[in-house]
C-alpha cells in the first residue's frame, strides 16, 4: 500500500512538473528579428557599437501562448498591446486576451514592439510597423513548427495597438529590409480584430498617440497619411471592430470612420458599439451586455475558419 502511494506520489510530482513546464513554455519568449538585422536602430547601425550599448539595446519580442496540440486550430493571432505609443499595456489586456484565444483553440503571440519614443530609433514613426511586419513574417515562416497555418494569421489590436494593427493591414510597403527567403513572405495579416482602436489622427484623434508616433506639430499631410480610415482599399483584410460609446479616451467615431471606409471599399467585417464600458474590453466584464463581445468575436473568427 505504502509502495503504491509512493508510486502515486511520484506520478503526481511528474505531472506537476510537466504541468509547470507547459505553463512555462506557454509563455515562451521569441526574438523575431534575425540576429543583427533589426533595422532603424542607431546602435546596430553604428560602426563603433560598444558591447555595453548592445547589451542595453532592448529588442522587441513575442510571447507565445499555445493551446494544447489536441485543441489547436490552424488559426493564430498576434496581439498588439496599446498604451498610446508611449508604453505597452501588455500585462493588463494582451495576456488575458491571449489566454482567451487559447480557450478557443487559437494560438496567440503577444508583441512587444519598439515605441516611437525610443531614443535608439533613426525614424520614429515606422519602428512599430517594422516590428509587427517582421513578426508576421516570422510567424508565417515558422507556422509548420507550431502546427498552424501561414494563411490564417490575424492581428488583434487594442487602442494604439489598433492603430498599429490597421497600419499593418493597409500599408503594403515592406519596411523590414529582411532578405533571402524572408523577402517573399507577405506582411499583410489575414484578418484583424480591433478593440477601441485609434484610427483617426485628425478631428477625433487620441492626441497622446498621435504626438508619440508623429511627434508634436505633425504636418496636415502626415496626419492624413497616418489616419487609417484614409488607407483602406478593397485589399484590406476582413476586420471586426469593438468600441464603447462612452469611451472618452478614443472616441467611437474612430471605429465608425474605419468601418465606413471598409464598407465603401467592400471590405467584409463587423462593427459592434456597446453603450458602456469606457476605454477597455476585458475578458471579465461587469456588464452582461458587454460580455457578449466574446461570443460575437469567436463566432466571427469561426466564419473566417470556414472559408
Amino acid at each position, binding site marked *: 500500500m505504502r509502495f503504491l502511494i509512493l508510486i502515486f506520489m511520484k506520478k503526481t510530482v511528474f505531472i506537476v512538473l510537466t504541468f509547470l513546464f507547459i505553463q512555462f513554455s506557454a509563455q515562451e519568449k521569441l526574438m523575431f528579428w534575425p540576429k543583427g538585422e533589426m533595422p532603424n536602430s542607431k546602435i546596430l547601425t553604428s560602426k563603433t557599437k560598444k558591447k555595453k550599448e548592445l547589451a542595453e539595446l532592448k529588442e522587441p519580442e513575442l510571447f507565445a501562448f499555445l493551446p494544447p496540440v489536441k485543441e489547436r486550430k490552424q488559426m493564430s493571432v498576434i496581439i498588439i498591446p496599446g498604451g498610446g505609443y508611449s508604453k505597452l499595456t501588455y500585462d493588463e489586456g494582451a495576456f488575458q486576451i491571449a489566454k482567451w484565444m487559447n480557450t478557443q483553440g487559437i494560438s496567440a503571440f503577444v508583441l512587444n514592439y519598439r515605441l516611437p519614443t525610443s531614443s535608439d530609433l533613426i525614424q520614429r514613426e515606422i519602428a512599430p510597423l517594422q516590428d509587427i511586419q517582421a513578426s508576421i513574417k516570422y510567424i508565417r515562416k515558422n507556422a509548420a513548427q507550431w502546427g498552424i497555418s501561414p494563411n490564417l494569421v490575424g492581428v488583434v489590436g487594442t487602442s494604439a495597438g489598433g492603430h498599429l494593427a490597421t497600419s499593418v493591414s493597409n500599408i503594403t510597403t515592406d519596411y523590414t529590409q529582411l532578405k533571402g527567403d524572408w523577402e517573399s513572405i507577405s506582411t499583410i495579416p489575414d484578418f484583424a480584430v480591433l478593440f477601441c482602436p485609434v484610427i483617426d489622427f485628425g478631428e477625433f484623434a487620441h492626441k497622446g498617440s498621435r504626438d508619440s508616433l508623429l511627434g508634436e506639430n505633425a504636418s496636415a499631410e502626415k496626419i492624413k497619411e497616418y489616419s487609417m480610415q484614409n488607407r483602406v482599399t478593397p485589399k484590406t483584410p476582413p476586420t471586426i471592430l469593438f468600441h464603447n460609446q462612452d469611451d472618452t479616451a478614443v472616441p467611437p467615431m474612430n471605429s465608425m470612420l474605419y468601418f465606413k471606409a471598409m464598407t465603401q471599399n467592400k471590405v467584409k467585417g463587423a462593427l459592434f458599439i456597446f453603450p458602456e464600458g469606457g476605454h477597455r474590453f476585458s475578458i471579465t466584464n461587469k456588464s452582461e451586455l458587454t460580455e457578449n463581445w466574446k461570443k460575437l468575436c469567436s463566432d466571427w473568427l469561426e*466564419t473566417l475558419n470556414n472559408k
Partner: protein
Amino acid sequence: MKKFILIFSIFIGIQLFAQQKITVWPKGEMPNSKGLKLNIIEEKEGRITQIQEAELFAFLPAKEERKPMAVIIIPGGGYHHLTYNLGGYSYAKWLNTLGISAFVLNYRLPTSPDLKQREIGPLQDIQAAIKLIRKNASQYGISPDQIGVLGTSAGGHLAAMASNISKDYTELKGDLSTISTIPNFAILVSPVIDLGEFAHKGSRDNLLGENASTEKIKEYSMQNRVTEKTPPTILFHAQNDPAVPVINSMMYYEAMIKNKVKGALFIFPEGEHNIGISNKSELTDHWKEVCSDWLKTISKK
C-alpha cells in the same frame, strides 16, 4: 375527458387573447381620413397592402412572467405594404419569451387613397398607439414609462419618426391629449433612416411621393432630426444589406453620438435585409441576446 376539454378551451381562450385586436383610434376620431370605406387587402400571405384603420395586435406574456416593459412593433414593407407576420408577430412572440408585452401595429400606409396628407398618416397612427398603450398600461399590468418601439426597415423609419418628431399629430382630445407620443426607447432593425443619397427609394417615393423637394427629403431623413431628447436607441444592420444600405444606421448612430443620446450599434457582416428571429448565420443570430441584455439595462433605470 371533460377536464381535458376544459383545459383545451382555456388554452384556446388564452391563445385568442394572446392576439387580441385593438382599434387604435377612439370611434370617429381618426384624423386625416376622407371617410372612404376600404377593404383589407392581403396581396399575398403575410403582406397587407391596404387597411381601413390602424390596429394593434396585443401579445401578452403569462401574468407570472410579465415585466413592466412593453414594445410596439412597427412592421416594414417600404411604406407600400405591411409584413405583419415576419416583421411583426414573430418579434412579438420572441419578446413575450423575455416577459415583455408586445403590440404589433398595422398602420395606414401613405399610399392609401383615404389619406388627405399621405406622409403623416403612419406617424399619426404610431403616436396614437403609444398614447393608447400608455393610457391602458395598468390594465395590462405594464408601466407607461417603459413603452418602446421596434421597427424593421421602413418600420424603423417610422420608429425613428416617433422618437424624434415632438409635434403631436393625433388631434386627440381629453385625457389622451396630455399623454406623450415619444417612446421610452427604440430598437431599429435594418432601418430606413436617410431619404437622400442612401435612401431606399421605394420607401421615400411611397412616403413623400415621387419628386419630393430636397427640403422635404432633408426633413424626413431621420439623422437630421436627432436631438439630446431622442430616446436611447439600439440599431442592428447587416453590412451586406442590398435593400437599405448599412450607412443608414451609421448616420443615425453618428447623430446620436453627437447629441449624447445613449445607445448601441451592431453591424453584422451577413444577414442581408433579413435580420429576423431565426437567422442563417449563427453570428447574426446573436442580435437577440444582445438586444435582450440591452433591454435589461433600460429596465433597470
